[in-house]
């Protein structure tokens, strides 16, 4: 099926998310939409899928102009979407999810579950998916859940498949498998739109690349173009893709974790007896697929988990069992993985957000009342220093872009006397310019002699920042390896396999 988008414009209030975007996707090709977070890729696809109504422009499928009033229409026209956040009901089985909205029924609306089972098995076998129709979705690994999304689209005879940031939640191995699936779908004549901001993937599978920046098409790129070329097109200026840093000048064993075990309320050990050490002036980066204990590890350090045993020592002081306030006061800086939930109060101003971790005493509070003057001066200074693009310090955090929100968090956390920095997903959902800036700050912190723990599910980021890499799998350490360990090996370790000849680097 041939898709033509002509002059699509979508506004949200005064913001133009899509500015007259035109695009053609041919059957049997993989068409990449490359752009930063917030460039308007997902908005465009939501317009195509009938979730949003375009203000201007038209959608044409095989020469016919379409008027979608909802996703149902788009699906009926042959468009299938693999959403970034899977649109699957977790407590339903695979078969139930696949048939939902498209059920074949018998007498009095009775579900024909067998027909759905057969359909799942048939598609699953055709593409070698190995998905079982009676498995409950929430029990499946993310990679398999994604295949369920693909089956869901295919079971409705989709001819055009949209993949919205499909690799964000996958291991490197799962990503490779997904690339194979996309190629297979292309061979069978489907048209594929692949939305991503990851250059590596684009160059691997794309037949054509359209780059979008600030809601506009900035041009087509050659799939053979170099990473640097693609990145500068995407960002609009030359970008440093490599983090510049000197060899670490390491100090003593400043941060020591021994036999740490974190148990969740359901009784599962999310962190299962791990021990590691970070020296002053060193970055230990934690690699792993999301949900393998990283969140619980960082929260345990900050005193945010209930059931923690083992020992966490910072400069000889035990942190386990202390309140979060005491831990912060001991000099722990924390960039949480979800800034919207744990990092900021969205309805507070920038200035108010900047004092959240020092809301009890000097410099911002005296005798129980705020020292507004000191806070404002501090906020003004940080706004400049960290290049936060906002109208002024009284802007609400909620109105900032992801990158600028994250800069506020980083500014707050780094503006104290730190003894340890814990940075969880420091650049998730952040534009390339801000990524550069935040990475520089992390490296600067390390160079000032402070131990740094970075947690990231992006292997690129782990490799760029790490002096040593610790791979977590199901709450246990697979290994602690040097930063120059090949990606292949790291990817394998992220699935829990430990290469035989692997040697740990001991601190």
């Amino acid at each position, binding site marked *: 099926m041939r898709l033509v988008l002509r002059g699509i414009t979508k506004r949200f209030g005064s913001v133009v998310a899509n500015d007259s975007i035109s695009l053609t996707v041919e059957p049997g090709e993989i068409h990449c939409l490359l752009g930063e977070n917030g460039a308007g890729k997902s908005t465009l696809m939501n317009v195509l899928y009938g979730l949003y109504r375009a203000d201007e422009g038209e959608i044409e499928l095989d020469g016919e102009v379409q008027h979608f009033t909802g996703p149902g229409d788009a699906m009926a026209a042959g468009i299938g979407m693999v959403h970034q956040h899977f649109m699957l009901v977790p407590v339903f089985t695979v078969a139930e999810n696949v048939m*939902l909205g498209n059920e074949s029924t018998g007498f009095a609306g009775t579900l024909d579950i067998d027909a759905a089972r057969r359909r799942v098995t048939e598609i699953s076998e055709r593409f070698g998916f190995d998905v079982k129709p009676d498995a409950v979705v929430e029990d499946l690994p993310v990679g398999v859940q994604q295949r369920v999304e693909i089956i869901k689209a295919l079971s409705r005879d989709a001819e055009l498949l949209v993949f919205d940031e499909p690799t964000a939640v996958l291991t490197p191995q799962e990503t490779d498998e997904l690339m194979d699936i996309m190629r297979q779908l292309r061979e069978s004549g489907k048209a594929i739109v692949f939305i991503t901001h990851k250059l590596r993937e684009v160059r691997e599978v794309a037949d054509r690349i359209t780059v979008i920046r600030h809601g506009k098409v900035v041009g087509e790129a050659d799939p053979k173009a170099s990473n640097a070329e693609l990145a500068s097109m995407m960002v609009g200026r030359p970008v440093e893709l490599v983090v510049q840093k000197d060899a670490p000048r390491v100090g003593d064993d400043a941060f020591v974790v021994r036999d740490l075990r974190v148990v969740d309320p359901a009784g599962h050990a999310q962190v299962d007896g791990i021990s590691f050490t970070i020296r002053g002036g060193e970055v230990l980066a934690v690699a792993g697929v999301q949900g393998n204990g990283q969140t619980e590890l960082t929260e345990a350090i900050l005193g945010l988990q209930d059931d923690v045993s083992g020992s966490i020592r910072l400069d000889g002081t035990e942190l386990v069992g202390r309140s979060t306030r005491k831990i912060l006061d001991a000099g722990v800086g924390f960039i949480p993985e979800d800034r919207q939930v744990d990092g900021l109060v969205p309805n507070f101003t920038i200035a108010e957000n900047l004092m959240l971790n020092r809301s009890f005493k000097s410099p911002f509070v005296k005798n129980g009342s705020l020292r507004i003057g000191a806070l404002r001066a501090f906020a003004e200074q940080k706004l400049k220093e960290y290049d936060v693009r906002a109208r002024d310090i009284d802007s609400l955090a909620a109105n900032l872009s992801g990158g600028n929100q994250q800069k506020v968090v980083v500014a707050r956390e780094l503006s104290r006397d730190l003894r340890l920095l814990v940075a969880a997903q420091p650049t998730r959902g952040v534009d390339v310019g801000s990524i550069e800036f935040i990475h520089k700050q992390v490296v600067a912190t390390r160079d000032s002699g402070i131990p740094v723990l970075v947690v990231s599910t992006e292997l690129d980021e782990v490799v760029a920042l790490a002096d040593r890499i610790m791979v977590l799998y199901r709450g246990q350490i697979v290994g602690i390896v040097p930063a120059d360990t090949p990606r292949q090996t790291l990817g394998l370790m992220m699935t829990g396999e430990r290469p035989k000849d692997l040697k740990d680097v001991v601190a």
Partner: protein
Amino acid sequence: MSTATDNPTPDSGGLAPDTVVTPTAGSGARKLPVVLGVLVLGLAIVLLRSSHSGDTTFRLAAETDFVTLPDVVVPSGPTAWVMVVICLALTAEAVRRMLGHLRQPMWIPIAFAVAWMIGFLSWAAADSRILIVSLLGGAVALAVPLVFGALGGVLGERAGVVNIAIEGQLLLGAFAAAIAASTTGSPWAGLVAAAVAGALVALVLGLFAITYFVDQVIVGVVLNVLVLGLTNFMFRQVLAPNAESLNSPEGFSRLPIPILGDIPLIGPLLFRQTPLVYVLYAVVALVAWALYRTRWGLRVRAVGEHPKAADTVGIKVNRTRYRTILLAGAIAGMGGAYYSLVSVAAFNREMTGGAGYIALAAVIFGKWDPIRATLAALLFGFATNLQGVLSSIGSPVPSQFMLMLPYLVTILAVAGLVGRSRPPAADGVPYRKQ
């Protein structure tokens, strides 16, 4: 992540999921032994403090049985103590499972409850008779509005709308049933009116909760109070002055079913009831079937679990929610008919007396499942009836304590024995399109 493919065959049903989640003991496993321990201890203390000699008679037969079962006569004290020992054994088993991190099977609390109840009854009714049929049959009758209400709650919450307004739906249902049955002379018209009244309350709930995104709990509570005030006002102004014409409905009378009603024990229990109870059987079966076996049910559950996923496959989320809560309201409203057409045969102020909230507890205790919620409602009905039966035979338990019993059972049930329960993921969350 895919393991070596063992090709699934098309006819392979009931396959285990890829990742096997090892069963670990949740908090329910730890709570159960504690609750059981407290209960058995309580019974033992009561027995020690005031032991009764004499016999207790359990009468299994009803007067008109086809086959008459003999009475069971047991010595009160010894029987009670034997039951305490059985309860202790069951508690020990629960403790063993807790220490071994094993799952607590359902038969433990059920067996415990039966043994405890026999022990308690033989003590409480020493030297007198317990009519098992009227004890249990009365429980079924008293549970009728609770079951209707709980079904209404289950349906609403499965679609993602918390139906706190069950109480209001019951009360307005009772009110409408009285008027309609009085003016038409037919209890069936009253039942229909009750359903319409319940749906009306649900419509208001939907308007605020679905269309205007108002907090569902608050709307529900406000609606209950509103209906309370409205019916009080109308009762005083309209019904009381015209009691002859508007508030003397033709009630439902007992309608034994020929053959089924003659089965010993079960017959008088289940099949010598009013037509409303038979309607209830049909509604329970229909809701349970429709929720799990039909397209409608699949969509209702999808909308309550993950409305956005439902939206992206072309299901109209809010339309589905409206339809479901209207149906839920109608079902809960029919429960209201029990009060003014079966229980009293006239409407009275505040006659539902908080049953809607008990029904809400049954929804949670029943883990949002129609059958389990029905059983939970029956349990609460039993507790209510037990209170009546015991005070009428003059048991040594103070009547104030007995009045507390249904609520005590509710709290114990919801807090202690429910185990791991998970409400629908989008329960109480309004759905907005961006």
